[in-house]
């Protein structure tokens, strides 16, 4: 067996993620005789990176493509557990990094099985006897994908759109083109962490983090977007009140092009 492990790195990797990934690499080598190759991207948009990784996996005739984001913490045995599942796409339980920390896997609310998706909030009620949760689509922050699936659908496999992420695009494209004959699952026995800063969102921390956000950050008290926007506007206006007015001297410099209110450095 041959597997390409693709990790997209923006600039640098958080120390917790680095340690977690090293443990994973160690167990990948120790637990199997598979040939495992590491593919790293640097500062690439996520869909561009995932398409490149898929091409590299096919060029090297890999059996599996494994995506691992640089902000995800995984149990060391993730690879062997996911591979044992022997399905087209499988991921651990991962939550979206941002309140209200919804699960990063989706169920279909339409008869065709893919055109209307929603967060799989009640996933605990739909776990099969083997521990898998069949999903309409999943996020690819940590995912094991059979390369045979990449051969069945034409590139581009991953496209980020206004209303969808690149991973959901791939899942929906597979479902459409293969007439739903694709097995996309979440393994309920595996739970990955998703780094916030500095804490991480995980099945075990989700409830306490939700409570923290709801009790300490007023705009999270409600999920109604208009109430959140009102809070954002009010807080920003309040902050503005404390800001000194732009002085006449500065305005003169601004007019003469000698100063700028907004300047951006070369370093981001």
């Amino acid at each position: 067996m041959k597997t390409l492990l693709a990790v997209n790195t923006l600039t640098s990797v958080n120390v917790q993620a680095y340690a977690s990934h090293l443990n994973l690499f160690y167990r990948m080598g120790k637990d199997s005789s598979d040939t495992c190759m590491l593919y790293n991207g640097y500062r690439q948009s996520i869909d561009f990176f995932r398409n490149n990784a898929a091409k590299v996996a096919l060029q090297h005739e890999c059996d599996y493509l494994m995506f691992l984001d640089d902000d995800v913490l995984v149990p060391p045995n993730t690879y062997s557990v996911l591979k044992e599942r022997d399905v087209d796409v499988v991921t651990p339980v991962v939550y979206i990094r941002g309140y209200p920390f919804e699960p990063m896997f989706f169920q279909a609310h339409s008869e065709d099985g893919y055109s209307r998706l929603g967060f799989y909030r009640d996933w605990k009620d739909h776990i099969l006897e083997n521990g898998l949760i069949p999903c309409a689509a999943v996020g690819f922050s940590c995912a094991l994908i059979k390369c045979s699936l990449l051969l069945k659908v034409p590139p581009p496999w991953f496209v980020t759109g206004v209303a969808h992420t690149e991973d959901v695009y791939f899942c929906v494209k597979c479902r459409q083109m293969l007439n739903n004959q694709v097995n996309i699952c979440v393994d309920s026995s595996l739970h990955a962490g998703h780094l916030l800063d500095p804490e991480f969102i995980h099945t075990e921390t989700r409830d306490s983090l939700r409570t923290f956000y709801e009790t300490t950050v007023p705009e999270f008290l409600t999920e109604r977007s208009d109430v959140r926007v009102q809070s954002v506007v009010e807080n920003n206006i309040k902050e503005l009140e404390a800001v000194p007015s732009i002085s006449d001297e500065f305005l003169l410099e601004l007019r003469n092009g000698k100063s700028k209110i907004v300047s951006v450095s070369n370093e981001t």
Partner: protein
Amino acid sequence: MKLNIGSGGLNLEGYINVDVNPDMKPDLVHDISHQVLPYEDGSIEEVLLVHTLEHIEREFHNFVLYEINRVLQLQGRFVAAFPEFVICSKLLIDNYKGEKQSWERQIFGRSTNSHEHHRCAMITDDFVMQLIEFGFHDIKAKSEITQAHNMFVSARKAYSLGTRETILRKELALDVK
């Protein structure tokens, strides 16, 4: 009385929410870029223009600012928020956080309907100078608390601009000179 112009479906409490798109269910359907606001001179205490100006072609900005100056009370507050073009373009070029598409949307707007396109580049420095021209003072500018690529700018009405006719006469007089 307070106005939230360009409410975009997010109606704020305590404000008259105004939007050009009736689908957004505003309190008042109104095109700020072409229509005179249906309020008396000096009758409004605060005007919000949160992520609205970038959706209006630059050629209509003078009209919009004139109308806001007209309806505001003396010392009435005007608050505008917009994605700062200088910052967003830098973030796009640098593919900051690997989110090129997101920075592109910050510059060009989302395209789910025709009202969501951005039609001009909002640059804080230029906007501040424009506010002075349109009778505002006590100008403050600050990055948004959680999204530093968005700017919040507030100003207070210093004086009334006069009628359009008097301004036009002044402009004509300047041209003659």
